[in-house]
């Protein structure tokens, strides 16, 4: 049947050609609507940030070691952000990344694991961390996809549960990594580039390929963009959702190994607030919190911008509190800017649902649609309510 497909259809359409309908309006998107344009905006932001750094801190900022410090800092959260990007494009959210990383780091540094690692190879610790992350992600995914829990709730529960389990395992103590080969490997560098940065780069490239060149990536966009349409197109949406959270869990495991290398410890306090940093990086990177759109490049730039900002502040002896305020402003500014630049492709106002006035909106004197669009959450370009995506 496949071979005859083209020939026959060609005849038929040739015979019944009629004028096409309306709807030939030009493509609406704004100036920087495409992924490339959005990322260009991020590059510009990063350049501006670097100029500010150069002006205020001069050589101390431009120093190679300083640049490596920024990248080393960014790399661990960066790996987590890659996993987070997949989850968010797929229409979900993962609040448990920091806690899963903590649990992985503790599990990989228990006496038993380290003993086994001593007998076999330090790779045992790495594998342990990855498996723990993957299993925690699997639990998240199953609860969300098959238990029909909101991702926000399910991963919030995992956040507290995983950290609690980590505390129980570690008995609230910090566990020292004894394997010196492990430490040498992860604190070392290759041709001057720290191993951590290389890992981040590898994970980013792998993430990019997975998102843009595989069926998995394509399905992720479809599931996040319109889950019902994806389901009716034959995609097994629940199964795919599970895979997304497993993927996120694995990146948490990788991040756990990295933080073990950097701090030489496994601890239940590792990874505090990573979820916020990762979500912030993803959002700054232009990924829609409602799912269906996003880029790995954007996320990488988002992470680097986030950590460069911190570095500039530190070099200028500004308090970490001021830094926190600035980060908050940056998140809002980044999203606002992207919305402005990308009007058209970002406004998800379809005929039909765009102007349906709820009585509340009417009565409160706000124009239709402004109720959802005006939520204070920074991550909601397009006016959708972020945070609680349908599963």
């Amino acid at each position, binding site marked *: 049947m496949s071979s005859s497909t083209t020939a026959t259809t060609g005849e038929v359409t040739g015979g019944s050609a009629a004028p096409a309908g309306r709807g030939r309006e030009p493509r609406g998107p704004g100036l920087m609507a495409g992924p490339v344009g959005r990322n260009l905006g991020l590059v510009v932001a990063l350049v501006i940030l670097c100029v500010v750094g150069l002006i205020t801190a001069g050589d101390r900022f431009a120093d190679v070691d300083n640049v490596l410090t920024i990248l080393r800092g960014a790399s661990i959260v960066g790996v987590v952000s890659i996993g987070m990007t997949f989850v968010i494009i797929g229409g979900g959210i993962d609040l448990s990344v920091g806690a899963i990383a903590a649990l992985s780091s503790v599990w990989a540094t228990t006496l038993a694991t380290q003993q086994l690692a001593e007998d076999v190879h330090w790779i045992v610790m790495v594998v342990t961390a990855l498996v723990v992350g993957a299993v925690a992600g699997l639990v998240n995914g199953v609860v969300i996809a098959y238990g029909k829990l909101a991702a926000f709730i399910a991963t919030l529960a995992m956040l507290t549960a995983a950290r609690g389990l980590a505390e129980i395992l570690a008995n609230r103590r910090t566990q020292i990594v004894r394997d010196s080969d492990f430490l040498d490997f992860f604190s070392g560098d290759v041709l001057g580039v720290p191993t951590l940065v290389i890992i981040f780069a590898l994970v980013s490239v792998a993430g990019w390929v997975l998102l843009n060149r595989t069926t998995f990536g394509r399905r992720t966009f479809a599931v996040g963009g319109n889950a019902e349409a*994806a389901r009716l197109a034959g995609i097994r949406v629940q199964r795919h959702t599970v895979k997304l959270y497993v993927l996120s869990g694995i990146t948490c495991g990788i991040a756990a190994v990295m933080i073990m290398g950097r701090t030489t410890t496994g601890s239940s306090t590792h990874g505090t607030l990573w979820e916020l940093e990762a979500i912030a990086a993803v959002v700054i990177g232009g990924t829609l919190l409602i799912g269906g759109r996003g880029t790995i490049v954007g996320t990488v730039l988002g992470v680097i911008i986030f950590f460069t900002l911190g570095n500039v502040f530190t070099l200028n002896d500004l308090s970490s509190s001021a830094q926190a305020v600035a980060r908050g402003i940056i998140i809002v500014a980044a999203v606002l800017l992207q919305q402005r630049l990308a009007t058209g492709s970002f406004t998800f106002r379809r005929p039909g649902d765009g102007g349906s006035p*709820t*009585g509340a909106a009417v009565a409160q004197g706000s124009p239709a649609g402004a109720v959802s669009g005006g939520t204070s959450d920074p991550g909601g370009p397009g006016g959708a309510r972020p945070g609680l995506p349908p599963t």
Partner: protein
Amino acid sequence: MSSTQGHAPLLEMHGIVKTFPGVRALDGVDLDVRAGEVHCLLGQNGAGKSTLIKVLAGAHQPDGGRITWRGEEVTLGSPQAAMSLGIATIYQELDLVSGLTVADNIFLGREPARFGITRAAVANAAASRLLTRLGHPEIRPTAEVGSLSAAAQQMVSMARALSQDARLIVMDEPSAVLDNEEVERLFAVVRDLTASDVAVVYISHRLEEIRQIGDRITVLKDGATVATGLPTRETPTREVITLMTGRAIEYVFPERRARAASDQAPLLEVQGLSLRGSFSDVSFSVRPGEIVGLAGLVGAGRSEILETVFGARRATTGTVRVGGKRLRTGDVGGAVAAGVGLAPEERKSQALLLGDSVYRNISISSLARFARGGFLARGSERAAASEQVRSLDVRPADVDREVRTLSGGNQQKVVLARWLLRECRVLLLDEPTRGVDVGARSEIYALVRDLADRGVAVVVVSSEIPEVLGLADRVLVVADGAVVAEERADALDEHRVLDLVMEGTAHQGVPVPATTQHEGDVA
């Protein structure tokens, strides 16, 4: 009815036009409503009723046309503007805040207050008065709205409209969530309102109900008024249905194949399929190369049948076989793997990834074919999609274009291209020409027939009876969730189908309303 004759029009809408990207939702709608009448608005899904009431509510701005309110031309620039004139709308999905009390909801945004402190007692007393006026004193103003029944919630919505001193209340399918007794009480409220000169625009699919409560009828079809000011009681039901479903233009249907495909084994076999609350014991089979149509009115269960066959809904009982192999119920992935494709009724929300490009929308069901070890061969993926775009004549022929910018007809072609690329053997089409303009319809018809000629088994559902009759080889008439007749398409005509539908509906025991009982109240 004669009592309404003397009133000057309260509202006149003339030549209202509203376009959305790719769709002309309203294309010249006329409507005039008199004070104190119940004016019924009829039309199939997609005829433009919802858009029209949103224009009336100030939520959509029309692109053309005139609106006159009490003799003066007005612009309904915002919901507030409409409301301040005295136009209130009660939406189908009630727009109440379920966590607030009845009184809070009624006065939302206009809470009686002194120095910013709300005065609950005043609000409760006022709410109580309104609800009593509506004949529902049993609804407590302090009750949480979420705890109320659908009927009671509707009364709260209505009380809100009254509290705003509405002169015209639009009710969008108010009876959809009510049982018979509640509908009777709703009607009593509506009669009360009209007695005090409030006008009601009443939307419903239930024709019997309209006959009972309505004074005049306006029928919309394809975004335009096809009849207005019909007297409710003198217009035969069949005429109303014909106005709603009849063809406005003679469409060109492709010729049927000369020989009937009776020699081949059925490709799709549906046996005793039931879905609780929707349809029961539906059986039919489709041979390769055959087009089977399901005809019936909205709400008869046609779409549900298709979606259940496809596995998008889990059947209560019954089996679906494709090529002799039984499908697992409720498993879309399995159905697609077996070669079944569905072009669903709501293209935008159920089929398309609107923000994605055309080629991605086409290839989404066939990704595995272009993948090696999970990696997509994007070159061949795009080429295959381009080929479909060319052969189906999707315009513009640009596979990188965002699918949302295409017209309805071209979007539908994209959905068909998806299943063509998948090489599906069974194609289920739900309202294949909904929102598709006239020119593109014949193309879609030709395409469907061509698919059948290539051996695909096709099932078509449509609200437009002529479409089903023109396109299908065999027609199943569905009424109230049951197949009431099965005939060759050329042995049927529209009137015969309507007769069958009405007979079927009567047999299924839909309550025949006690029209006479209330006649006196209105006239």
